[in-house]
């Protein structure tokens, strides 16, 4: 009872505990912010994994797998698999419609030929389509006057989904939002057209290089595609590089489409051509597979391996199939996590770094509380002697300071989480602000405050009191430096999306981590308090009261 009362008084009657609370709060906020961002990363990566490539990928690059329809059917017969889709994966050149004039920009691109219907079943592709007309009038009103979404044709989503212009029936191309340079991200996360260009109004020329059966380069083929929509997977690397066209177009341009199979060893026919052996099937480079809900990627991978073995045997036993699929050993079957190892690895490593940082931050908390309480116990040893002399137990004295630590941990933790939440939810705006010049008012305000502090310094100096003079001086210098820093600030891009994969910073608080951090702060504050508390409990009343 008296312990609560005293802990309460010691807390409220001095400034040091406030400093401790502030320090604990800063530690907690730091951890909450960094871990939330890291967890946000991993979550984004994991959810985007599906969007990018389903759960399991069968890969046989360059030459491609024949009879993929049957492979897809064999995989979809597995109970673990929800859907599978064939895919052509290659690189090509993309000639942009900009700038004005004859010299157009050309970029390299990772080109995916997809079968839109099954691709959608495997990857939730439709969710990544960026351009959508406003759902209702309210949403339209919320958009800026120059927002390109205001004047979108209602067809645009359907066209993007089908990779085909609905009006003309032309095969279309969907490109990543950052493949072109014209989309500029706004503070609110929407995009505006730079220089007035809007890609879905234009056509691009795609050049692909087919590879012959012997592995040599054949005559490049080019084709003009209308851009029907753009997609945003949120993984910057992909949004910057990838374009998608219909599977059939990709196969045709790469000569992976169905053809006739000639017998090259037999003597030529009278007209000089080789005799026909049969049909040469169309090929794809990949098959993406999505797991049924509740099936892990690893379980699915095993099922897919079984299905592939079955498919390979069936083809081998089928005399009508002159062309056989590649052997199992030649084909890689990986979960998306294995496939994107180089993407996920660094993030996981960074998270490990965080864990280390974690423990250091806790130690800082404990050390802070320890040293502050040590000073308080030192200062309060006479009070403690008094308490002991009127019959307070060691436990009671211990409890005063443990409670003290508990309150500092609890309050500091709550304040820290609040601070972390504030920063996290505004992290993209903050980042944006850091990336730009500081506004005029910010540094003028700093300079004004600095001037006031300077005047106060002079005033206190004239009154001849040293501590306030010094404090005001420190304030004046700090504010002045802050103002100068803001004035000199030209905008720095801290978060380079090209390095961090994602185009926005995750802005949701990881509440589990926040809770654990809070608990950790409390535990370590109490631990830190326990050392001085034990010292306090050991204080000898006679010694403490001896001298005045």
């Amino acid at each position, binding site marked *: *009872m*008296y312990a609560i*009362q*005293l802990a309460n*008084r*010691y807390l409220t*009657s001095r400034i040091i505990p406030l400093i401790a609370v502030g320090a604990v709060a800063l530690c907690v906020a730091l951890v909450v912010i960094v871990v939330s961002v890291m967890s946000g990363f991993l979550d984004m990566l994991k959810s985007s994994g599906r969007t990018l490539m389903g759960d399991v990928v069968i890969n046989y690059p360059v030459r491609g797998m024949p009879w993929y329809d049957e492979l897809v059917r064999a995989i979809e017969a597995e109970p673990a698999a929800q859907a599978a889709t064939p895919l052509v994966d290659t690189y090509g050149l993309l000639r942009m419609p900009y700038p004005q004039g004859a010299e157009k920009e050309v970029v390299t691109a990772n080109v995916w030929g997809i079968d839109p219907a099954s691709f959608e079943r495997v990857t939730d592709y439709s969710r990544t389509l960026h351009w959508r007309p406003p759902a209702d009038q309210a949403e339209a009103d919320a958009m800026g006057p120059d927002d390109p979404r205001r004047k979108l044709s209602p067809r645009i989503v359907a066209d993007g989904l089908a990779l085909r212009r609905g009006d003309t029936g032309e095969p279309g191309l969907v490109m990543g939002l950052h493949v072109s340079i014209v989309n500029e991200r706004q503070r609110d996360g929407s995009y505006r057209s730079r220089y007035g260009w809007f890609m879905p109004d234009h056509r691009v020329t795609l050049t692909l290089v087919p590879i012959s059966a012997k592995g040599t380069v054949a005559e490049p083929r080019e084709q003009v595609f209308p851009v029907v929509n753009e997609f945003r997977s949120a993984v910057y690397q992909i949004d910057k590089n990838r374009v998608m066209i219909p599977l059939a177009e990709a196969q045709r341009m790469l000569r992976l489409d169905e053809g006739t199979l000639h017998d090259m060893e037999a003597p030529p026919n009278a007209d000089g051509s080789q005799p026909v052996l049969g049909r040469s099937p169309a090929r794809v480079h990949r098959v993406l597979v999505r797991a049924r809900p509740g099936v892990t990627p690893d379980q699915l991978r095993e099922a897919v391996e079984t299905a592939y073995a079955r498919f390979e045997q069936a083809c081998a036993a089928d005399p009508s199939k002159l062309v056989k699929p590649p052997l199992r050993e030649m084909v890689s079957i990986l979960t998306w996590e294995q496939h994107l190892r180089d993407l996920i690895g660094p993030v996981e490593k960074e998270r490990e770094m965080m864990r280390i940082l974690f423990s250091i931050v806790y130690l800082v908390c404990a050390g802070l509380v320890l040293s502050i309480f040590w000073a308080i116990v030192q200062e309060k040893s*006479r*009070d403690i*002697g*008094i*308490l*002991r*002399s*009127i*019959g*307070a*137990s060691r436990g*009671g004295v211990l409890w005063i300071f443990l409670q003290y630590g508990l309150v500092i941990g609890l309050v500091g933790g709550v304040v820290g989480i609040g601070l972390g939440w504030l920063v996290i939810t505004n992290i993209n705006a903050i980042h944006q602000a850091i990336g730009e010049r500081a506004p005029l008012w910010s540094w003028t305000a700093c300079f004004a405050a600095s001037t006031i502090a300077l005047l106060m310094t002079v005033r206190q100096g004239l009154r001849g009191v040293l501590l306030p003079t010094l404090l005001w001086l420190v304030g004046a210098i700090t504010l002045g430096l802050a103002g100068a820093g803001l004035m000199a600030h030209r905008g720095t891009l801290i978060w380079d999306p090209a390095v961090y994969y994602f185009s926005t910073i995750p802005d949701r608080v990881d509440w589990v981590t926040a809770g654990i951090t809070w608990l950790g702060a409390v535990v370590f504050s109490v631990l830190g308090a326990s050392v001085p508390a034990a010292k306090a409990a050991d204080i*000898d*009343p*006679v010694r403490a*009261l001896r001298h*005045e």
Partner: protein
Amino acid sequence: MSEAPLLQARDLHKTYRMGRLDVPVLRGADFTMRKGEWVAILGSSGSGKSTLMHLLGLLDEPDRGRGGVWFEGQPVAGLRGGARNHYRNRSVGFVFQFYHLLPELTVLENAMLPCRVAGAGRAAAGHVRSLLTAFGLDHRLHHRPRELSGGERQRVAIARALANEPRVLLADEPTGNLDARTGGEILDMITGLHRQGLSIAMVTHDPAVAARADRVVQLVDGRVADR
């Protein structure tokens, strides 16, 4: 022998260690106080008066193996832990020369502290308030000690010592830090309490103060002598 003395010390030894040097302060001190008695302890500075009081109040421990302290006939010097705290809290009330109030607590809270330590908060509030009122502090209840004069502070300290209605008041130079008039007021107060039946052991330098007591003893060479 009809009744055991209220508080008794026999053959108390206390030696302080100063580095390698042993400084004997008490060398077989005896002390007896009957119920309702006011005993004044005189002695020159450094003679060990405070040391004796601390031993009587169980704030400190005598040298091992010899002598001891008895309260109402029970040996108490060897008490440990809870029993020792209970003795300090209930059986005796201690008043120091330098008041020793807690600066963060108000007058009322300071005086209430022993009750709170005992686990009795509200119940004792009325009693403590009436003590403070009797000491003329009713208009000061919610002030901090630093806002009080020395005499007022010492009155708060006495109220605190009496909060749990102890059998014995141990006062170590309660007027030593006060001017003659204020000290006189405090002495009048203590005299009043004594008339109501409180047993008092009081250390003083001042023979005039000692004159008010029922009996005076003197501490010389680590022993107690009657005067």
